[in-house]
């Protein structure tokens, strides 16, 4: 059984919700990413979602776009991120998921990517611009090699797509909380609970909510009807606004612990 499945099993036994933390790999550079990952793990994140920078990240708002740019400027590539995961695996055992636009994977070579990712200890991959319609071959190969292809669902997804994608999804379902790009929001979208409830009816795997979950209150609210949350832009913003590593790591630890605390409270 892979790390993601194990992780959710453990979370379920402990009767709590999952916390996935997203950062852009290589922001501000890959060396710093290592120390940031240690902090995230030590602060109680269940899963790390490591963003692969892309020149044209279409699903991202300004915060993660800027992080992508900083990362590319520091020389980050998909190859280097895979090496980074290999390095991290020497000391860390939490599940690691890569979030990437399709083109870097396509240019890397889809099969080669799957093999290398699995070899270094990547557990899953989220490719927002590779919907199930285009992912058939990739998914078959990933499944064969043991890499979870995590699919997304959105507020706009009709019932038949929910059923289709819930069946194809591996690891967990990433529910996009709002009709929009990634970013910090002040409230949850209307109707979020109903939609997640209907997805959970079709899905055997956990349903997590991402996009716009930017503070402990929203995280607590979102875990009332989901299996966990994905926090991204708020974390990336902290990294952006704290250039001193010691200060940054302190604030990251505080922030992630506060989210963890909020979703651990009995509702």
């Amino acid at each position: 059984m892979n790390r993601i499945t194990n992780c959710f099993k453990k979370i379920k036994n402990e009767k709590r919700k999952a916390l996935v933390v997203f950062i852009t790999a290589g922001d501000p550079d890959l060396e710093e990413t290592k120390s940031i990952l240690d902090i995230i793990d030590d602060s109680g994140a269940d899963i790390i979602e490591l963003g692969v920078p892309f020149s044209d990240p279409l699903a991202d708002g300004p915060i993660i776009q800027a992080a992508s740019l900083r990362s590319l400027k520091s020389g980050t590539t998909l190859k280097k991120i895979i090496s980074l995961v290999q390095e991290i695996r020497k000391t860390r055992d939490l599940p690691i998921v890569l979030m990437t636009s399709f083109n870097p994977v396509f240019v890397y070579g889809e099969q080669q990517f799957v093999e290398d990712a699995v070899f270094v200890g990547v557990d899953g991959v989220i490719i927002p611009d590779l919907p199930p319609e285009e992912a058939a071959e990739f998914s078959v190969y990933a499944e064969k090699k043991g890499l979870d292809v995590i699919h997304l669902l959105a507020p706009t997804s009709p019932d038949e797509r929910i059923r289709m994608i819930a069946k194809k999804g591996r690891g967990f379902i990433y529910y996009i909380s709002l009709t929009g790009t990634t970013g910090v929001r002040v409230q949850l979208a209307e109707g979020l609970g109903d939609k997640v409830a209907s997805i959970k009816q079709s899905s055997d795997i956990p349903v997590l909510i991402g996009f716009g979950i930017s503070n402990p209150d929203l995280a607590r609210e979102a875990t009332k009807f989901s299996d966990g949350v994905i926090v991204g832009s708020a974390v990336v913003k902290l990294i952006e606004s704290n250039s001193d590593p010691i200060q940054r790591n302190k604030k990251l630890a505080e922030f992630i612990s506060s989210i963890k605390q909020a979703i651990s409270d009995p509702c």
Partner: protein
Amino acid sequence: MDDNTKSMELPDAQGHFGPFGGKYVIETLMPALDSLERLYEEVHNDPKFQSDLKYYLKEYVGRPTPLFFAERLTKHLGGAKIYLKREDLNHTGAHKINNTIGSALLALRMGKKRVIAETGAGQHGVATATAAALFGLKCDVFMGEEDIKRQALNVFRMKLLGAKVIAVTAGTRTLKDATSEAIREWITSVETTHYIIGSVVGPHPYPMIVRNFQRVIGDEVSEQIMEIEKRLPNLCVACVGGGSNAMGLFYPFVQNEKIRLVGVEAAGFGIETGKHGATLSHGSTGVLHGMMSYLLHDDDGQVQEAHSISAGLDYPGVGCEHSYLKLTGRAEYESITDEEALEGFKLLSHKEGIIPALETAHAIAHVAKIAPKMNKKEIIVVCLSGRGDKDVNQIADRMEMGL
């Protein structure tokens, strides 16, 4: 060649042209693409929609556009007979409006009250703003900050037409980033907004829909040249940025393999400098803006900056059907530098009294190279995709700099 005859029936049901095309977008947009596909299928065979479209193209846009024999240019070059398909005479001055009228009618059918568009040279932005004004739709146009500088006249026109022009400051601040920003806006407002893409690019069904709205160019050429010359042309030439005017001209001729099809891309400062927009000639397969196509990108899959003197060709991607025509060998793709394009710009102005758009000047420059090598009985049709008024300031600046 089997592949070519099949090409008339492409894309396939999944929106693929061979290995190209498809729908590489986030889940949020997939349902909108599915419903656009269904709606298009419906209106494609709906006589009312088609007669509405025909009416506006005739009475508002001014179609059919003339197919003009460029006698002095032909004599000057001393080879094949050159005909100009005068898309510059369309209302708003370019072929772009063929697509925006059709797409705005689609928006009305969907009950969407707002349209958005990306624009490079500003021609698609103006054409979208025009259609939006005509049909009473709200219109926001995304335009790179660099292009806003290069194309001040078109920015002013869009504003006059009641559209909002949103400056895009990300990345290279040109068409690529304007397109990315328009897609992001669409992800946010997909339930109330129709995205009118300006070229034969983007996720399925866009490349097919835009091609079908633009094929009126080639359909008219086919009729007109038969009437004038009693035969079809030997060669069709058009400039290619995303490639909508080229696809519109080529499409009705794709099955007739006797007719050579040549698309002309931007070689910018020169291919060897790496600063160009010659995606088909020098790119490789990749995914950008929702489709698989040729792309200018590096070994790590990061999209590279394109360069062209003309904002409309300054794009690192290209329409997926062009990629297919290139792959199968049915069409050929050449490139023309900034300098050569400027010569083409002056040539057409002097010889025919027609100031072409800088984009179009690339096609003219290529014709100037090959027409002299062709037989005098042969016929070239070049798509005069747009007029050059928008470029006059930029060129005046350049000429004063000693060009």
